């Protein structure tokens, strides 16, 4: 492998990539911006549930329950007027707490099994189930306090629960590593896939293949510069994660570095394989997109991967994003065990080796 050749490719690719101001923005600023936006916006907690109250105006206990609900932080007040169903339909309210029809809550609470009714918009069924749990607790507590005796289920005082790694149950800690992976992947795959396809499209591919170079030399020259660019993004993204979101880094930095390096190398390799299939940029873009979209969805960023039915689990196992998300969360949040680290890293490395092999085998220094 000629050093002069590699250096020449690096200079050319980097000059081209960084000369355009918009490209510079795209490569360096955009990942940070995306991470910021999604890190803040993507909350998985149940909050701001618009709760309306339906009941008799003189039902003080009902109002107390409602106030307690609002104070809990999960619920916010909502006005519905008489037609609460329309309010649910239009999204003005998400939940309606209804008192008993034939008396006040205080009057009926000992006579009815379930004096309170909660009407929920269950479109988002997970959210609905969670807020039902919260509401049940809140109602039980309020009623228990009012009556002085336990209507609430006996709290198993023999049990203590401890939450590790994220005692505050902060969404960002979970989401940010995932968004880091997402953001890095989008940049590297697209840049790489387009690079070779671009050369084919504007004709400079001929220039390269008329020189006496081996497949390995050409592919290395075209792709290694993008590994560098991808790696340059890693400290930027990490910086945002640290400074803005205070995501801890409990594991050693070298592990983070190694995981990032292997991941970037893998995504660049995949981008290269894609570009060997594509005859022009448009095809390269479509193909990279067709890979990336399912990969993102099956990486654990948005949905738990464990829930995937066994028949389809293979899809997750060949997805490098899944390993990187696991690694990031593991290293940053849990200081994961070395064995687990090595396992995930090796899986990614194996995938990248497969991609590299496919690229070298498929690449033809021919125009036909």
């Amino acid at each position, binding site marked *: 492998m000629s050093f002069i*050749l590699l250096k*020449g490719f690096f200079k050319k690719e980097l000059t*081209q990539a960084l*000369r355009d101001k918009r490209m510079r923005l795209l490569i360096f600023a955009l990942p940070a911006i995306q991470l910021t936006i999604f890190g803040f916006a993507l909350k998985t907690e149940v909050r701001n549930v618009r709760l309306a109250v339906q009941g008799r105006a003189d039902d003080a206990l009902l109002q107390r329950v409602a106030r307690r609900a609002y104070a809990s932080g999960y619920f916010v007040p909502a006005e519905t007027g008489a037609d609460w169903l329309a309010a649910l339909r239009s999204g003005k309210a998400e939940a309606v707490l209804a008192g008993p029809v034939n008396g006040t809550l205080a009057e009926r609470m000992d006579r009815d099994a379930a004096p309170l009714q909660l009407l929920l918009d269950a479109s988002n069924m997970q959210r609905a189930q969670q807020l039902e749990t919260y509401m049940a607790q809140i109602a039980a507590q309020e009623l228990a306090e009012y009556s002085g005796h336990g209507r609430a289920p006996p709290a198993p005082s023999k049990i203590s629960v401890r939450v590790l790694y994220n005692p505050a149950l902060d969404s960002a800690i979970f989401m940010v590593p995932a968004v880091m992976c997402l953001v890095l992947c989008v940049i590297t795959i697209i840049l790489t896939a387009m690079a070779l396809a671009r050369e084919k499209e504007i*004709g400079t591919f*001929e220039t390269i293949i008329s*020189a*006496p170079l081996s497949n390995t030399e050409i592919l290395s020259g075209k792709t290694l510069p993008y590994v560098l660019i991808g790696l340059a993004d890693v400290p930027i993204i990490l910086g945002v994660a640290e400074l803005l979101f205070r995501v801890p880094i409990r594991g050693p930095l070298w592990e983070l570095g190694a995981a990032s390096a292997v991941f970037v190398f893998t995504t660049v390799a995949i981008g290269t394989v894609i570009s060997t299939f594509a005859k022009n940029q448009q095809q390269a873009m479509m193909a990279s997109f067709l890979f990336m979209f399912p990969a993102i969805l099956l990486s654990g960023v948005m949905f738990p991967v464990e829930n995937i039915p066994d028949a389809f689990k293979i899809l997750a196992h060949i997805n490098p994003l899944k390993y990187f998300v696991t690694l990031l969360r593991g290293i940053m949040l849990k200081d994961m065990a070395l064995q687990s680290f090595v396992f995930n890293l090796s899986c990614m490395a194996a995938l990248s080796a497969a991609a590299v092999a496919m690229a070298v085998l498929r690449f033809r220094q*021919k*125009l036909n």
Partner: protein
Amino acid sequence: MNETPSVLVKNLTIRFGAFTAVDDISFSVGKGEIFGFLGANGAGKTTTIRALCGLLTPSSGEISVAGATPLEPELLKARIGYMSQRFTLYPDLTVDENLAFAGALRKMTPGQAKKRSEELLDFTGFSFGRAKLVRELPGGARQQVALAAAVLHDPQVIFLDEPTAGVSAQAREQFWALIRRMAKQDKTVFVTTHYMDEAEECGRIALMSAGKIIALDSPANLEKTAFKNPLYETLAPEGVNLAQEAKLSGAGHAEPAGLKWRVEVSNPAAWEKLCADKKLLPHPAKPTLEDVFLKLVGAGK
């Protein structure tokens, strides 16, 4: 030629699916020759050149360039320089950056590459700034840089595919002066063109039509041998279709050339009669390559 030819092609055929682009052609080019490949667009010139440079896999046949075959691509490519018909420099890089990259591709040290770049830009007569982005240069200047990039590594055989397409007449003139200078340095230059006047400059030319070589000789020989009958040039009165008239009267074959007609006379008696009838004022003409080409290509149809 008693030394091994620079370029040797035997029974080369290149097919793209059902379409035969190059149909069983054979020729050889000697060292230091300026060899021209003449033909209309789609005749197979570019396809042939690409195969010779190792950029296309032929369907069948043998190729040897500068002593190397396409089975040794790295050896072959090291010995040739190729300037494509398409513009193959990077428009978003400067002249210097393009040439530096061309040097790196050939694994030349930066010092070597720089020296050669300067020499070549001088040699080609490049007069613009070297820090200019290539896309900002006029067509002729771009071709100069492209040529410099193609021969940076001092190859023995140089392939130029329509190097003067879309370039001003003066630039074309300059470019051919360049080609002649290169040939004097004992380089073999293989040029494709569809300009007849450029073809006159070549040592030998091959006429290509529909994938076949229909003639191969020096321009002078071609002009001599293609026309056994005398050739005349004349104006014709308006409304007179000389091609039809010549054919009908048996006088010969007439081809339009701009406003005039060029007639190959096979029957002098019929010709005289036709001239008298239509009041033509012919004068003898010397066959040009264009005449040769039209005749040979027309004959093939």
